[in-house]
Every structure is written in structure tokens, then in C-alpha cells.
């Protein structure tokens, strides 16, 4: 039983990471109907920015404060990156066919990955210890301070996001744009600005995930965005792409099932489980767990 609970804890901390990244996918899809393949790589950039920032602070004692600083720095950097990508790569093709948008997204993704390999070097790097270590043992289940941090910070950010979307004017504007871009425009909403903010928010969350992962599993490398990004994407679809609470639910579900499959079956099926779930969802309930059915108009 303890093993099961331990695996559950493992799954929750992994799932929170997926949830954070999935939020970015779901928000961008909501406003632009675009699957932003480059999102996983923004997460990777966040991890690297966090890495270099924490190296700068290496002399200082590991503390909550330095960890916070690193995370905020990474979030800011990636918010800017997200805005840049949107402005330079996606806005010129916004009115084009879906396939064109998709290819552009793939292009940006490849560009980020290869630039990272060039600039940071293709070898994996290892995050230094940021926050003080402390482990909690409850009934034989061991929870590390990193895992607690990951889960706590993720939930905090998600709650903040929910508040932002539901209670602020900008949040309302975001919801309007995701409902109908053209109608929002007619209502006087500056859609370009809202879209930029959406990208910035999503990228910032991805960056936070990157730093959290760096703290938990010390290893980062330029291609880490690919497996995490893809599974976070599946999580977004599972929850209902375009739905914020759906992304969170999806992330936790995917994370937990992945850990269970690896622990109780075999690690070879690690990736398959995510795609298996994806296909089942798309065939049985394409709008996801919490999404709305999209009626196709003639």
C-alpha cells in the first residue's frame, strides 16, 4: 500500500508539471485555434534560463528566496520569448490555412531546439541545488521537499491563473477572444494585445515548470521539450483543449497514469500510455473531459 501511495505522490508531482505546460497549450489553442508545437521548447528554454540564473547565485546559500528569484527570472524571460515568437512567426500567418500555421509552429519548434543545441551545447546539464533539502516521511511514504515545492507552486500558479481569467478585465477579454476572435474585435477589444498576453502567460507558466523540473530531476538538455511537451499536449486534449481546468485535470491524470504504468508494468510503455489515452479520448469523446462540443457549421 505504501508503494502505491508513494507512486501516487510521484505521479502527482510529475502531473503538476504536465498541467503547467498544458495550460499554455490550451490557452493558445483557445484564442488562436493553433497547436503551438513550439510550447514544449519554451519550457526547455525556461529550464535553461533558470539553470544559468542559479549558477549566478551559486555563491549564496540555497534558500527559498533564491529559488523564487530564479523562477521569476525564468518566467519573465520566457514571457518575452513567447511574445516574440507570436509577433515574428505566428502573426504574419494568422489568416492562412491551418496547415500553414502548423508547419510554422513546427518550424519554430525545430528552430528553438537547434538554437539551444548550438548555444547551450548538446550535452545535458545539471541543475544545482536551490532550496534547502528536507524530507517528510508519512507512514513509509517519502516525500521530498522538491516534490512538495513542485506540487505547491504548480497549484498556486494555477489558482492565480484561474483568478486572473475569471476576475480581471483582461481575463474576460481572453475568454471573449477564445469564443470568437472577430466578434471580440468588433466589440473593440485589442485582439493583438490579448493574444500577446495569452502567449506571455502560457510561456511564463511553462518556464516555471522548467525550473521546477530542474529542481526535481537535476538533468536538463536541449531536447527535453519534446517528450514533456508532447505529453502535456495530450493532457490538454484529454482535459478538453481550450479548457483551463481541463488542462489541470488532464495533466494530473496523464502524470499519474504514466508513473503507475512505468512502476507496475514496464518503462517501455511510458510514452505509449499517453498516446493510448489520447486516441481513446479522441475516438470516444473528442471534446475531452471538460470541453464543449464544437459544432461544424456549413
Amino acid at each position, binding site marked *: 500500500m505504501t508503494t502505491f501511495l508513494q507512486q501516487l505522490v510521484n505521479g502527482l508531482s510529475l502531473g503538476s508539471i504536465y498541467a503547467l505546460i498544458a495550460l499554455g497549450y490550451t490557452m493558445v489553442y483557445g484564442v488562436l485555434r493553433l497547436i503551438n508545437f513550439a510550447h514544449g521548447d519554451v519550457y526547455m528554454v525556461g529550464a535553461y534560463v533558470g539553470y544559468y540564473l542559479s549558477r549566478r547565485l551559486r555563491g549564496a546559500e540555497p534558500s527559498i528566496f533564491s529559488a523564487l528569484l530564479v523562477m521569476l527570472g525564468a518566467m519573465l524571460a520566457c514571457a518575452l520569448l513567447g511574445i516574440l515568437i507570436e509577433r515574428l512567426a505566428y502573426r504574419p500567418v494568422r489568416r492562412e*490555412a491551418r496547415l500553414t500555421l502548423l508547419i*510554422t509552429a*513546427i*518550424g519554430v519548434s525545430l*528552430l528553438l531546439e*537547434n538554437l539551444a543545441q*548550438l548555444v547551450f551545447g548538446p550535452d545535458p546539464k545539471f541543475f544545482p541545488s536551490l532550496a534547502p533539502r528536507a524530507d517528510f516521511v508519512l507512514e513509509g511514504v517519502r516525500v521530498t521537499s522538491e516534490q512538495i515545492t513542485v506540487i505547491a507552486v504548480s497549484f498556486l500558479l494555477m489558482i492565480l491563473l484561474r483568478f486572473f481569467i475569471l476576475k480581471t478585465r483582461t481575463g474576460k477579454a481572453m475568454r471573449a477572444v477564445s469564443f470568437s476572435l472577430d466578434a471580440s474585435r468588433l466589440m473593440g477589444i485589442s485582439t493583438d494585445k490579448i493574444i500577446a498576453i495569452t502567449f506571455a502567460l502560457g510561456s511564463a507558466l511553462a518556464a516555471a515548470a522548467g525550473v521546477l523540473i530542474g529542481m526535481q530531476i537535476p538533468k536538463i538538455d536541449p531536447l527535453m521539450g519534446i517528450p514533456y511537451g508532447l505529453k502535456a499536449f495530450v493532457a490538454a486534449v484529454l482535459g478538453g483543449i481550450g479548457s483551463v481546468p481541463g488542462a489541470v485535470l488532464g495533466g494530473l491524470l496523464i502524470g499519474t497514469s504514466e508513473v503507475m504504468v512505468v512502476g507496475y508494468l514496464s518503462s*517501455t510503455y511510458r510514452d505509449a500510455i499517453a498516446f493510448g489515452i489520447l486516441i481513446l479520448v479522441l*475516438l470516444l469523446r473528442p471534446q475531452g473531459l471538460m470541453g464543449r462540443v464544437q459544432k*461544424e457549421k456549413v
Partner: protein
Amino acid sequence: MRAFLLGLAIAGVLLLANAAFMGSFGSALALPPYLLQIVCLAGINVILAVSLNLINGFTGQFSIGHAGFMAIGAYAASYFTVTFGGRLREAVGFLPEFGRESLVLLVGLSIGALLAAVAGFLVGVPSLRLRGDYLAIVTLGFGEIIRVIIQSLDAVGGARGFAGIPKLANFFWIYGFAALTILIVYRIVHSSFGRTLIAIREDEIAAEAMGVHTTRAKVISFVVSSAMAGVGGGLFAHYLMYIHPASFTFLKSFEIIIMIVIGGLGSISGSILGAVLFITLTEGLRQFAQYRMVLFSLLLIVIMIVRPQGILGHREFVTFLTRRRRPLGESPGTPEEA
């Protein structure tokens, strides 16, 4: 009769070219082995690109799992030639060596194509009910699942890769099958079935309203496309002698998509052009090692912004030259909304 003679003539030319390139007629025409490899890989790319264009370009379906079918073809064909090739060779010992090797390859490729077609059917039937982005995601998912399943099969080396595949594919076979693929797709597209596919691409709901069995047509084109991808995969395996599941990820599917988009969706000559350009660029830029992929991805983004319909758009090379305005089923403008 005329078609048959033409086919024989083409086969003859390819055979001669193959011998020439390998140096049988003296080194004047012999290609340096590295160049020959690029040419052969280009040929395989042509098969993959043209077959994908049938479903993406002509039928307008958003499929990004093509690498999965390629993988099935590659592994199935290789498993056959490695495990049963010896026995087959013995059984037809009376044939000259060329005949024996060719038979082993052909049987292997057929098995690969068949299994890929079956997979295409199994994937197509449930998926093709979906539209646009959802279809793309599902095909991506299936492509990855196929790859993971292969990775867990110890009999074909699993995660360690499959080594020791006999080098049965050469210029003749690769370009022979490339010509065959082009022919098949050309004939499909210029038939009434082809017009059905284009109708589905242009407006699926209208086509359905006109009495077209859209799902059936989509599945058929999907199955044909997968079978051809399987052949491409089999040739790929028998040329490189080593395959690994990591060669068939969605990145590979993306590469094929890039080829047909650059060349022009809905244009057969466009796919050929895209395939050749792609391998030329990736090999040609190899000198610049790390900068290669950065340049390449930048190029991709720029092309999408500047000329999203690709080089040839919906037109074929011939019509491109003669500037005919209204080729096959096209209404002027960039590719349609999904």
C-alpha cells in the same frame, strides 16, 4: 500494349543507369558512393512524399503519422528477409543470383506494404471520422503508438535497433518503385475516383451532400497511401542495413510533411521537387554541421510566411511552365481552410 512497352523501356533505362552509377561501365559514369547514397535516399523520399500527398494534398486530410506506416513496412520487410530470406533463396536456387535476391526483396516489400495497408485501414477507419486538427492529433498519436509497439518487440531488436539487414535495395529498385508510386498516384488522381478525393478536399460536406461516400473514399486513399509508405520503409531498411525506432518518430513524419508543403500540396511534381530539395538541403548543409538545422528551420518559417502554397502550389510542373490558369479542380487562391 503501348503502356507495357513504355514500362519496359523505363525499367531498362533504370537498369542501365543503376549499372552505370555503380561503375560497371567504367568509372566515367560511376557516381562517388556518397553521392549515390544521396540520390538513393532522395528516391525513397520521393516515394514517401508522393504517397503522403495523396492523402494530405489531394484528399485534404491532415495526416501526420506517415512515419508509423513507413516503420511497419521497414520492420516487416526486414524481419522477413532476415528470418526467411535464406529459406526462400534455397527454394529458388535455380534462379541466377540477381533473380534470387530480387525475389527476396520483392516478397519482403510486398509483406511490408500489406501490413502497412492493414495498419492504414485500422488507423483510418476510426480516425477519418474526425476533422482537421483532431485528425492531425490522432494520426500523430497512432504514429507514435506504432513506434512504441515496435520498440517493445524484442524479436526485431526493440529499443536497441535492428541490425544486419541485407543490402538488397539499390538505385534500380528504389527508382523503379518511385516511378511506380508516381504512376499509381497520377492514375488515381486523374480518374473519377480522384475527382471524388478532390471534391472531398474542396468541401467535404458538399461532397457528402452530392452523394459521395466520403468516409469510404478517404479510407481507400489512406490505405493506398500507407501501403506505398510501407514500400518506402522497406526500401529504406534494405538500403541502410540498420533501422531503429528512433528513426520513425513524428519528427520523420514532419520531415515528409515539410517536403510536400515546400513542393506544393496537391501537386505530384511538387512532392518530387520537395523531396529532392529536402535531401539536397539537409545533405548539402551538412558541412555547416550545427548551423545546418538552425538554417533549415529558419528557412521553413520564412517559406511559410512568404509563400505558404509551396513552390508549385496546386499546379504540376508542366502546367507551371505553360502557365495554364485552371489545373485539376483548383479554384485560384491559397490552400483551403481545414
